[in-house]
């Protein structure tokens, strides 16, 4: 029985412009591709990744334009389509004025008080 992993993403928007993705969302996708059983929990500022319709296009330096800016919301959709459940801490959304209808489809919310119990469902809890 493979060990189940919960990836908690808290460090948000850290070099996402340069990377054109979030490196832990990407890592989760690649781990899943390698056969891992895992879920992703967004907490803190990272809950904003789930907000639909983010647009950070338009960056340029001189004549060098960024043609593929990060699209973190659609990357989460890709992750869920790959079979990785994505959860977000409800209070972290509320504190930032984010309504559930602002999120991409498929995101499950979990109360902060339920996070410790959630850990029991996984063999490994990785906090990024």
């Amino acid at each position: 029985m493979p060990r189940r992993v919960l990836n908690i993403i808290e460090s948000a928007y850290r070099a996402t412009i340069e990377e054109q993705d979030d490196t832990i969302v990407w890592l989760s996708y690649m781990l899943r591709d390698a056969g891992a059983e895992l879920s992703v929990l967004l907490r803190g500022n990272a809950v904003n990744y789930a907000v639909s319709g983010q647009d950070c296009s338009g960056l340029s330096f001189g004549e060098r334009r960024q043609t593929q800016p990060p699209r973190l919301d659609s990357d989460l959709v890709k992750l869920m389509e790959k079979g990785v459940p994505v959860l977000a801490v409800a209070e972290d959304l509320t504190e930032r004025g984010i309504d559930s209808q602002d999120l991409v489809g498929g995101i499950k919310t979990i109360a902060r008080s339920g996070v410790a119990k959630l850990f029991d469902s996984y063999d490994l809890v990785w906090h990024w």
Partner: protein
Amino acid sequence: MAASKTLTFALMDPPYENARSTTALRLIDCALRRGHNVNVFAYEGGVGLAFAKQAPHPNAMHGRDVAQEDHPNPKDWITALLKEAEQRGTKLDWVQCGMCVDERGAGEAVAGLRRGSPADLWKFAQASDNTLIIPSK
């Protein structure tokens, strides 16, 4: 347009770690577009921004190959800024801290930069209208 100023930036963060370096490059870009001269002192991890061996990669999550992903490398942004300065007739004087470069084995930088020392930061600060330090946190 207001009279041209000379601004100095000290950059300390390595590439691909946080948004500060991107923001710093945007500020430099903005200054150059407005006709100001810019000095940069790249310190510690900041010397990695111009490391010439940075290479773009594909992105399997996006389903794009290396050409389609068009992954940006900060070294290319710096080259673009140098070109921008040249075209606008302003100056971008970018100094790489030599000891920081040596520590990291990052001696191969894109063309147009120069190797220096903290004395260059001091000279920059003396000759500039203002200096902005963007440190690591």
